[in-house]
């Protein structure tokens, strides 16, 4: 029987996780198979070629492109310092002397007698690659990196900004429907992954950046505040390189939405323990969701889930409603009627029946729920 794939977010107390850590271009692998690595270890490293700066020698010396070799003081491969003279003319009257200086420190990359340009390249930049999670190297990818494996709590958010970071988890609110306010952010939250409730506003995020918090995890955020923080409107959901001073992870969506009770309790059970988080989000072409990884077993958990989730829904599954009305509400699947049903917008769609915690029953299009994989 065919099963339509249903999107879902993982909120798993303990599972086996593998992270492939690879450089964008070939480099040197610094860890070996079987090695235990902390999250902050450099497991591989490479050099990014320096930036290139062209200088038009012909224009500057008022000569033709073909004539420039006669005026060069540096040749291809020579090192140069910023301000050093790389070419000059030798006029009869010294006052008319023109010199061309290098705009950067680096090496001469190329010279063209067609365009009259010299290309100067800055020194390469070292690019280190961290392990990101505490675990064991289970595979080495020669010249590129490693795969690190760990067992631990794995929680996916729906959207984030900012890249990888780590730190101990710090529960800053008592309940998942409490707002995270600036007053909740304390000095001892420096370097921490602060967990809030239904919302963090602009003032809270600014306070957290000031206090040196590494990451905030909350149920919701207003898009207007996000725009203020970033200085621009996010056009497409491809994030992870923003440098605002911390990583932000939203678990439910945009607006004021209490964090799912299950997610909140799971994070609370790992309070004080070191976590690796990433805000990187990519909605298409290789979906990535922001994540929180806490290595090790939570208290009272004896077993680690090893198999992949089903990928489709069945009665009894916990689901989250992800579109108006009832956005953010969590319920349980009661039934999956196969026939198309007309909804208020007059679209004929496949639906499911969901029961909420208070017993209310709702009929929701199947496209408007996501499975909570536990």
């Amino acid at each position, binding site marked *: 029987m065919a099963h339509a*794939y249903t*999107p879902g977010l993982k909120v798993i107390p303990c599972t086996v996780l593998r992270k492939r850590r690879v450089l964008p*271009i070939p480099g040197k692998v610094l860890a070996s198979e079987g090695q235990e690595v902390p999250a902050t270890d450099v497991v591989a490293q490479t050099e990014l*070629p320096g*930036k*290139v*700066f*062209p200088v038009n020698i012909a224009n500057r010396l008022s000569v033709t*492109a073909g004539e420039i070799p006669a005026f060069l003081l540096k040749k291809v491969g020579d090192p140069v310092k910023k301000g050093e003279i790389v070419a000059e003319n030798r006029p009869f009257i010294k006052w008319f002397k023109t010199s061309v200086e290098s705009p950067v420190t680096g090496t001469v*990359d*190329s010279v*063209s007698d*067609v*365009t009259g*340009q010299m*290309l100067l*390249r800055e020194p390469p930049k070292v690019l280190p690659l961290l392990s990101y999670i505490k675990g064991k190297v289970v595979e080495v990818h020669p010249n590129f990196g490693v795969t690190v494996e760990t067992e631990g709590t794995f929680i996916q958010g*729906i*959207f984030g900004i900012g890249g990888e970071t780590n730190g101990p988890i710090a529960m800053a609110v008592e309940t998942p429907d409490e707002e995270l306010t600036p007053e909740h952010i304390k000095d001892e939250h420096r370097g921490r992954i602060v967990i809030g409730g239904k919302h963090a506003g602009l003032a809270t995020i600014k306070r957290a950046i000031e206090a040196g918090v590494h990451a905030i995890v909350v149920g919701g955020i*207003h*898009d*207007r505040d*996000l*725009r203020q923080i970033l200085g*621009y*409107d*996010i*056009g*497409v*959901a491809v994030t992870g390189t923003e440098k605002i001073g911390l990583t932000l992870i939203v678990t439910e*969506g*945009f*607006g004021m939405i209490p964090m799912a009770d299950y997610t909140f309790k799971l994070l609370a059970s790992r309070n004080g323990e070191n976590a690796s988080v990433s805000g990187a*989000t990519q*909605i*298409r*072409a*290789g*979906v990535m969701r922001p994540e929180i990884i806490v290595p090790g077993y939570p208290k009272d958990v004896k077993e680690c889930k090893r198999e992949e989730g089903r990928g489709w829904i069945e009665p009894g599954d916990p689901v989250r409603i*992800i*579109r*108006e*009305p009832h*956005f953010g509400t969590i319920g349980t699947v009661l039934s999956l009627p196969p026939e198309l049903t007309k*909804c*208020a*917008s*007059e*679209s004929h*769609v496949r639906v499911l029946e969901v029961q909420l915690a208070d017993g209310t029953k709702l009929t*929701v*299009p199947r*496209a*408007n729920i*996501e499975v909570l994989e536990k």
Partner: protein
Amino acid sequence: MENKEPRIIIATDCGSTTTKAILIEKKGDTYRQTFRGEAPTTVEAPFEDVTKGVLNAITEVEELSGRKILDGERIITPADGNTGVDVYVSTSSAGGGLQMMVAGAVKAMTGESAQRCALGAGAIVMDVLASNDGRADHEKIERIRQLRPDMMLLSGGTDGGTVTHVVELAQFLKAADPKPRLGASYKLPVIYAGNNKARPQIEEILGDRTALIVTENLRPVLERENLMPARHKIHDIFLEHVMQQAPGYPKLMKMVGAPIMPTPAAVGTMTEKFAKANNFNVLAVDIGGATTDVFSVFTEVFNRTVSANLGMSYSISNVMAEAGLPNLLRWLPFDLDEQDLRNRLKNKMIRPTTIPQTVEELQVEHAVSREALRLAFEQHKALAVGLKGVQQERSISDAFDQTSSGQSLIKLMDLDYIIGSGGILAHSPRRTQSMMMMIDAYQPEGVTMFAVDSIFMMPHLGVLSQISEKAALDVFYHDCLVRLGTCVAPKGLAKEGANILDWELAPEGGKPVSGTLRFGELLHLPFAEARGKLMLKPAKGFDVGAGPGNAREAKCEGGQVGLVLDGRGRPFELPKAHSKRIAELNKWYKAMELYPA
């Protein structure tokens, strides 16, 4: 595939999310689409083999049709009774489609020509570099390094002219050493289609580092573009290099009976065939989740643009950023807080597969769609222009006219047909909604016919037309196009309530109807007959295609919506006053029966 015409055809389109298969059978003398199947596209992990999704979609067609098409993973050819097919063809936009970077010497001349060439070949143009594009040289080099195109198109200089600019671009390209998107270890294909005098230098600079292909100059003289040789090379490289690297495509390429086309190229081909077969000026649009493709054929000149930043889910936030919140809110017949709208759109962006459940949510999506269609059309009009930099012979009156080279080819009054496709247009709960979204976005003038592509079959038919134009056009007319009807929109402005048009519609085989259109009015009449004739007498100052105040007779088509007489004026502006705007919107939406009461 032998010379005889195929009788049974299976065609697939591998989209970013779903792979769609259709079965086409010759019934008597006419080809008809009989069954269709769909399955998730399988280029991403854990499958990483596009043929799995193809086979799943074809399996669904097998189950529905009772025809055995597959023998394991092999497509059975030729057809024999209820087994097999005569040919299999496919298109693809999976994995983000074909992504290119183009470079030209002068932005508005060879830069633009290179852009048109790449777009016409079905590519998404990631950036257009030019010597005079306003960026510092080191910024250009850095930009080349950051982007990871599938291939590059380098042009510049007319034949025999100066070589400096294009050689400089080649040097920047070499210094940047760009890596292709797919396959870290293979060389980036670079097509050189510039000044033939610079070929030796280009080969010396780029020959080692890139997979360089040299072809005819795409702008050999300023007065003429020569895009086809470079377009063919793009297509060849797309198959040889890009597709070979994409998961499962080498297998797929062995299965097909004609070269795989990028989806947008196939849609463009079908648009062209339709326009030429009927001698129409046509506008076709495909509005998807991430991009909006616009195709036009005006005075036999084909143009395509991709607004890679405008779409209904992945790019919905871009639409908001580009259009601005006031332009979105203006289409809503109810009040909505700006913060609420922002959050709703972002929630759609991060959960793109959700659908509108309530009428209010549907109206919000339709408002966004109007703006996305409008903005994509503006971008299209800007690129579908006469050649720039061309000396024109001018008479004294031309000089007073102040026209210059580079005028848009798109003239709304001459537009005969608009075809919409993409989820929001093809699957709206009421067909009137699709037609109104396009009317509001494009503001057609005069007499314009509308249709939607019922299930996004145009890609399949475009690639099929390579083998059988008759098969493609038969299915296009009978099964693909859902005719919506005709819109009559007099161009001009007047006071509210003024008579602006006397009209009569004579449906073929039906009773004539007539009436008067007043300014500010939107009239909607059922008109289901395939053909009809319109007799139009505009008031003084109003133009329906024969000049201001001149009567006109025009052929038209009926459809599922019928005849729409749009008396809101051209150019059309919504009332600025809030309560008047909402009242007018409600009046028009009611006239069109757009939404349930």
